[in-house]
């Protein structure tokens, strides 16, 4: 073991780095959110105006509500796809397990942008899907709502974040002692009962972890909405991006990000606490 002094010494560079480039910037975020823009310049005049504006202007609330709805839908669909997949792999796939596992992971390594763009190729008015439908004679006009809609954002984000829900669910399913299942089977429990009384409760921590990932990540996403969301698919992070860009109101942007940060941190810590409570502690 290393001595305490040595451990302290090696802790200095990373602590400095984290303080300088993580804590200090968060501090700036906090400070900026109480400042103001006047005549195209940021003035260090401390006040609560940004927060007041967030509360009073319904635009921000509408966009936030929409972002939460989109993120919730993504979470739901990602769970609906991720759970059965994890279940199948863990209990039914047998020797193909490892291969299938890798197959779920590989799309994770394909560039985020590239995958979002691929959906654009598929959904566009001259896209693969529309021309395919017309080619097959199923429709005569291109279907417009496919691209540039909340639907497109939800579809793309679900595609991107399904592996993220799959992984923790799969990990918790793999940790279920197979002896428990055998014992229940020997005692005459049906398949359904086995699932609801053993598998599902034990998979719950994984489900919560997966749902948190999908929700937090899709809530903070601003690239997919910009690329394929259209005006109705704008999310809260897009508002922040525009406030930091053309709209040039960093303080207001900082206030929104700080609220987002608080929401995300609250969510993550709540989920973590819930997971710990539900954790299986052995026989």
């Amino acid at each position, binding site marked *: *073991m*290393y*001595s305490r002094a*040595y451990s302290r010494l*090696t*802790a200095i*560079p*990373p602590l400095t*780095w*984290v303080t300088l*480039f*993580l804590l200090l*910037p968060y501090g*700036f*975020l906090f400070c900026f959110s109480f400042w103001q823009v006047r005549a195209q310049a940021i003035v260090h005049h401390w006040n609560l105006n940004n927060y007041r504006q967030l509360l009073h202007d319904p635009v921000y609330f509408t966009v936030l509500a929409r972002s939460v709805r989109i993120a919730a839908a993504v979470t739901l669909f990602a769970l609906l*796809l991720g759970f*059965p997949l994890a279940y199948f792999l863990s209990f039914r796939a047998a020797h193909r397990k*490892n291969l299938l*596992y*890798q197959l*779920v*992971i*590989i*799309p994770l*390594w*394909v*560039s*985020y*942008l*590239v995958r979002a*763009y*691929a959906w*654009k*190729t*598929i959904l566009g008015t*001259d*896209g*693969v899907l529309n*021309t395919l439908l017309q*080619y097959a004679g199923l429709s005569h006009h291109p279907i417009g709502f496919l691209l540039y809609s909340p639907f497109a954002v939800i579809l793309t984000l679900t*595609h991107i974040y*399904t592996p*993220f829900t799959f*992984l*923790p669910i799969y*990990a918790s399913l*793999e940790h279920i002692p197979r002896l428990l299942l055998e014992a229940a089977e020997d005692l005459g429990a049906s398949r359904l009962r086995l699932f609801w009384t053993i598998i599902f409760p034990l998979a719950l921590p994984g489900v919560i972890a997966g749902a948190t990932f999908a929700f*937090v*990540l899709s809530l*903070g996403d*601003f*690239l997919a909405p910009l*690329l394929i969301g259209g005006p109705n698919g704008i999310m809260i*992070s897009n508002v*922040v991006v525009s406030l*930091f860009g053309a709209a040039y109101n*960093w303080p207001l942007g900082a206030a929104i990000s700080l609220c*987002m940060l608080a929401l*995300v941190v609250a969510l*993550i810590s709540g989920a973590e606490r819930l997971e710990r409570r539900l954790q299986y502690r052995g026989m």
Partner: protein
Amino acid sequence: MAVFVFLYLPILVLIVYSFNGESVGGFPPRGWTWHWYEVLMQDDALWSSISNSMLVAGLAVILAILFGLPAALVLLPLILPGIITGLSLLMLFVTAGLKLSLLTIAIGHGTALISIAVTEISAGLQKFDRAQEEASRDLGASEWRTFWRITLPNLKVSIVAAVLLIFTLSLDEIAVSFFLVGRENTLPLEIWSRLRRGMTPEINAISTLIFGFSLATIVVWYKLRRFSNDEEEKGTGAALFQNGTSDALLER
């Protein structure tokens, strides 16, 4: 099985359409061509953005490993949301009067990806027998010597794995870079600015190449992990997720 179709369909479309003769999507694909790859080869802006990305990824690896290595010994994994990391660093750099450049992007990536280094390396630390360090100290080796002769060699595989992972993630990172970019673009930002302009089939071509490149890196990474932990069958992804690295991985 339908889920696999969902996961792979876009990737397949992308690869097929990178060889498509017509510039618009359209089904069925018409005319096999290398044209978009030729366009790609002659595109200087794109290639310089690739070399920029490589530079940033290299720096990010160095920063994250350098600071993550000792940090794994003492610090808890960090959880960072991407857009917030980007924004808050932007405020820091602007307030400090630092000009935005590839260096600021590299600092951003280094900060965002430290947690990858921390989780990979602490996973490595858990696997090796720490009693070896004690033995080394008891036999009179200094701390420095123990680190170089015992700890570091034992962590070799984890460090290489972390390097590959951070490099690949940095190459693809966009949420943090988006805010910290100066005059020179990284590859994802270059792709981004072209995508905003409309359909550009050479993006399909470069994407196919990136897909191939990440696939190759990941295969190497898996081989390494397999080599280091045969007893743990679950694979890296699950292990990563239990450690909570995921968040860094996910923050884009």
